[in-house]
């Protein structure tokens, strides 16, 4: 019989999770995870150091503290354990489509069908081991020809970790190790039946009558005579992960390690699903001003961080690099208590990548990573692409949209472009000027448009040359007092830095217009750069 079923147990799950969230490598202090009500807390799990002090699972916390005074105590987080198990199920889904969650800390995998694909049983086992180590989980392996047998060997391995992954006969296994009801085991032991082999030798009808049909069924499932209905894992359509930091932390550098872990987990799931991710939402839960022992009520504000990618990716390094670049620009007003990672949509397959410029050569040339790097550091609002709108009003014809919004529609206006000269740069907003400071050097071009919307204009446009730079801008109306050039550039709105060194100079060619509804008002709208 082939041993195609694998039962993976995670006996240290609670401690593994704490280690994974740790900002630094574990110190040599004894640690325990406790469970149960506050007054009657019991040790759920003790680490190796604590075990040397004699701390054991099931001990009362007070007893454990007496044994190891320097004990670090963590409270068990069942929700996090469940989530971790589900993430592992998603990881296992990459190896087989038949995965089921077993209790609080075990997974059942059917590997018979995929063993050849991954280069045989041993290669597959090494791979699983490697993955789990990389993910930061310590697991025990139990193989079996049937789910029940795999579970049984996994239980044996829990008590004797040396037998993890080994194949040995089931007959000598003591009844106490089996999934049989304790009462029945006690009755059997009282009659001198101590191992599964001895139980199997008993006449079936007698076993059914004396120890119940369930006992017989269990033997049947162990031997594969009875089929077993498993509730198979189905991968979710979205991804959520929550990580509570062991200590609140206010510097973005300290978040690097836990973030890397979270993104690594995400990528494992993505790899298993053969998918990628294009948008990751991170929420940082900040400590509230009022301190509280309950985590939920001690969370104040939430800081959001969105990471968008041009191309679906599941490379943890790449995701981490982009996240870090964005994180570095964040300032947390209060310490961070935990991180929530959300991917709203997991694509079911590797999406055909759609390039922003519709040209697949860009990717080969490294343009996509470049754009991602730029927008990660500068912010999405700093990378803009043009949009040409069919409108005669110059300020409406030119639009700049964030690059991240995806391929913008560039639809040239119907009919021929305007016939006369157009400046190569355009002020986002026209600036009022003194017409005596310029010389008009072209004939007028009238633009009259927009009576149908709120932007009705009637203007005569001229090409003008500046003759008196000092008088050009009407100071009372310019956005900023002081140097005229500073006023020009501040009004560009796209630029927040002070511009001091480019100066308005006689001779520069500008695009100006007269507002025909208020003929005394002249405006500067662009430069013939």
């Amino acid at each position, binding site marked *: 019989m082939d041993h195609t079923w694998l039962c993976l147990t995670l006996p240290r799950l609670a401690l593994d999770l704490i280690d994974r969230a740790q900002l630094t490598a574990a110190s040599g202090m004894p640690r325990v995870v406790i469970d149960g009500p506050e007054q009657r807390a019991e040790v759920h799990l003790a680490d190796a150091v604590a075990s040397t002090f004699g701390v054991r699972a099931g001990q009362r916390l007070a007893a454990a503290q007496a044994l190891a005074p320097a004990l670090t105590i963590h409270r068990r987080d069942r929700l996090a354990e469940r989530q971790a198990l589900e993430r592992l199920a998603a990881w296992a889904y990459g190896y087989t489509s038949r995965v089921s969650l077993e209790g609080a800390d075990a997974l059942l995998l059917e590997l018979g069908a995929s063993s050849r694909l991954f280069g045989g049983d041993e290669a597959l086992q090494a791979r699983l081991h490697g993955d789990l180590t990389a993910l930061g989980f310590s697991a025990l392996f139990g193989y079996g020809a049937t789910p029940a047998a795999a579970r049984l060997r996994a239980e044996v391995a829990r008590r004797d970790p040396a037998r993890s992954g080994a194949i040995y006969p089931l007959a000598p296994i003591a009844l106490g190790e089996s999934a049989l009801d304790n009462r029945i085991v006690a009755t059997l032991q009282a009659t001198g039946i101590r191992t599964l082999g001895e139980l199997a030798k008993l006449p079936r009808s007698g076993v059914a009558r004396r120890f119940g049909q369930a006992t017989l069924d269990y033997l049947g499932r162990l031997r594969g005579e009875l089929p077993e209905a498993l509730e198979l894992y189905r991968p979710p359509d979205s991804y959520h992960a929550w990580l509570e930091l062991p200590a609140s932390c206010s510097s973005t550098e300290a978040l690097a390690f836990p973030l890397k872990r979270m993104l690594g987990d995400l990528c494992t799931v993505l790899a298993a699903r053969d998918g990628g991710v294009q948008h990751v939402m991170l929420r940082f839960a900040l400590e509230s001003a009022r301190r509280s022992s309950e985590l939920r009520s001690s969370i104040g504000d939430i800081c959001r961080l969105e990471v968008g990618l041009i191309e679906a990716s599941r490379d943890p390094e790449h995701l981490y690099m982009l996240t870090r670049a964005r994180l570095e620009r964040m300032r947390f007003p209060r310490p961070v208590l935990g991180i929530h990672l959300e991917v709203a949509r997991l694509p079911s397959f590797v999406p055909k990548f759609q390039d922003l410029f519709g040209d697949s050569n860009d990717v080969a040339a490294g343009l996509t990573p470049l754009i991602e790097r730029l927008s990660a550091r500068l912010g999405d609002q700093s990378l803009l692409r043009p949009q040409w709108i069919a409108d005669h009003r110059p300020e409406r014809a030119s639009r700049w949209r964030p690059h991240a919004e995806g391929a913008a529609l560039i639809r040239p206006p119907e009919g021929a472009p305007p016939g006369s000269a157009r400046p190569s740069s*355009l002020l986002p907003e026209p600036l009022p000027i003194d017409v005596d400071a310029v010389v008009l050097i072209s004939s007028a071009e009238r633009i009259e448009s927009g009576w149908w919307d709120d932007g009705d204009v009637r203007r005569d446009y001229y090409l003008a040359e500046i003759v008196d730079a000092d008088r050009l801008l009407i100071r009372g109306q310019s956005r900023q007092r002081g140097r005229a050039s500073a006023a020009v550039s501040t009004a560009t709105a796209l*630029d927040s830095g002070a511009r001091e060194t480019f100066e308005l100079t006689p001779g520069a060619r500008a695009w100006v217009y007269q507002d025909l509804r208020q003929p005394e008002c002249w405006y500067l709208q662009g430069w013939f750069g």
Partner: protein
Amino acid sequence: MSALRALPSVTSATLADAAIPTSTTELLHRDDIWRAREGAQRPLPVQTTGHAPLDAQLPGHGWPIGRLSEILLPQMGMGEIELLLPLLARRSQAGQLLVYVHPPCPPNIPALARAGVALDRLLLIAPASEREALWATEQILASGTPCSVLLWAEQADERAMRRLALAAEGSRSLALVFRPLAQERQVTPASLRIRIDRPLARRRSAFSKRAA
């Protein structure tokens, strides 16, 4: 990069050997070494600007590609973009990205479209500070993607310019920095420096310096 250009003359040598030229003759074949006796340098890779009088004035009779160039001007509106628009349009039509970094005033899209710029290749980068702008420009030049990058820098010091010049070298990109006239005193690592005193429509453009 420049060291590797010595390779063709030492065909049998390994890469490591080739990186250290063994004779003066080999050294003299390098692009970045020139002899004063020869007067002009070996020609740089150039592309025609589309203005014959300008091409005639430029070293190598075209705009340098893969080298940093700079234009000193008092302000926008001197015809500085129109000067290069035919070249920029041609490059964008060939699929190369045209990036405006930190301009004092964003480009007028219809005007660029009329000049033949492929709008789907146009990108405007409006960072919060000039430092970020310099960083972005360096990233673009160093990415290996051939682009046309126009940067407006006002406080860039010699060190920043040198970083850009290094990134531009061998990048197949057109790297152009617009700087205020006041920075003419600064030593420049750019291969080409043009100073515009008066609007170019009057055909008065002074070429002041050619640095190595």
